[in-house]
């Protein structure tokens, strides 16, 4: 593999098919965005449910989070791919990937959101209640906007993991970056070095700026706002 990376001939063969990789990279980006949107929506809904005063929504949220967090993502992806047709839901591999990854990270984001909500002092929801805000309005206008600031770093962490985990699509046969790389390398020319190196670089280019930004934001928050920083530290401790 190392010789291949140093061999111009291998690179020329690889570069001839460059557009295939670019297109698959586009799929990975698209899947990441769609899965992230789904994960955020699920995370907010189930995160809010798990702070409810009522037992039912709390237990439903708990069941979702525990079921997802304690089984492998790969298993979940297979189940979605193989089981959904039986209940009449036909989806392409890429769509299944979006759902599997979105639902998986939704559970983790729900925990982040829950910890964030619980870090907001009780006085905030009491003030909102005393003004006549309903539970949902209180969440929307008072609690969640304050939560965002504190949970942004663990949320960015989840985004990075989500991007990497979209590679699960390769296992169920969707043509994302991971699958295209593996396919291309193992069929035909047997050139492994350049495609896998480039594949890694492309994932890195997506994830590194995000995680760097998240870390910088966190450092700034801890320096500027000692209260928020303290809450963040507690949340991270709880989630780890």
């Amino acid at each position, binding site marked *: 593999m190392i010789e291949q990376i140093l061999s111009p001939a291998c690179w020329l063969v690889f570069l001839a098919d460059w557009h295939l990789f670019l297109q698959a990279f586009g799929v990975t980006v698209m899947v990441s965005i769609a899965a992230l949107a789904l994960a955020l929506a699920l995370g907010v809904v189930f995160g809010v449910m798990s702070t409810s005063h009522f037992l039912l929504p709390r237990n439903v949220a708990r069941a979702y989070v525990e079921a997802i967090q304690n089984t492998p993502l790969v298993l979940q992806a297979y189940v979605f791919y193989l089981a959904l047709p039986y209940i009449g839901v036909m989806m392409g591999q890429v769509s299944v990937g979006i759902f599997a990854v979105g639902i998986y990270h939704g559970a983790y984001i729900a925990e982040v959101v829950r910890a964030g909500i619980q870090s907001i002092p009780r*006085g905030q929801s009491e003030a909102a209640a*005393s003004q*006549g805000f309903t539970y949902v309005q209180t969440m929307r*206008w008072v609690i969640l906007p304050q939560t965002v600031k504190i949970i942004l770093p663990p949320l960015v962490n989840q985004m990075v993991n989500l991007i990497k985990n979209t590679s699960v699509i390769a296992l169920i046969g969707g043509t994302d970056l991971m699958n295209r790389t593996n396919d291309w390398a193992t069929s035909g020319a047997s050139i492994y070095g350049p495609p896998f190196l480039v594949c890694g670089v492309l994932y890195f280019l997506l994830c590194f700026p995000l995680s760097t930004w998240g870390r910088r934001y966190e450092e700034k928050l801890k320096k500027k706002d000692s209260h928020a920083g303290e809450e963040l530290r507690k949340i991270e401790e709880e989630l780890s």
Partner: protein
Amino acid sequence: MIRLSNVHKSFGSHEVLKGVNLEVREGEKLVIIGPSGSGKSTTVRCMNGLEIPTSGHVFIDNVELTRKNRIELVRNTSSMVFQQFNLYPHLTVMGNLTLAPVKLFGKSKSEAQDIARHYLEVVGLEEKAHAYPATLSGGQQQRVAIARALCSQTKIILFDEPTSALDPETVQEVLNVMVKLAGEKNITMVIVTHEMGFAREVADRVIFMDDGTILEEGTPEHFFVSPTHERTRQFLGKILH
């Protein structure tokens, strides 16, 4: 206006209110005093549904306050000022003052801002409209909280120890605003406080609570000149030195 009928409230096995009967008249300035743990705060918190009685009834304008209707009933009838201010830290002063009017009362943004500016003037903080709460002193934050309560334009304002968390130097600026409000005939005020000078100045009626019940009630003159119960005298003796 507000009526509490045989209100009991327990937290776990601890009974905080042991049968409170109380009627607050429209426009009345009622001051509740008593040692800590006597149930004063719980009593006012029952008046806006922050606590729901374990047994007994709370009526506002002859409508019973329940778990079901509390949000709507409270929205249109009462506001509260808290010991810890509880301003919304992610919003500016103006944002704090206009959130409920815009989101709950359907006012336009500019209309809500006009009202907010008016009440900021009442509490003497016009120049802080665009500041964030964290940049204000405790006294200033509490005055903003009072302005926020006023912006809902409800007939009842509840004060739960509004000066207890303040530095001694800033207590007076908050009390001054409250004295000014007490001059408004159509605002009903229920105030839990340890500020006896203030109580004497503004109260139409004073209630002394001890151990979850109302032990004594009367005019400020009655209270500070010749209280009936030994327990009341004891308490006032301690607090007035």
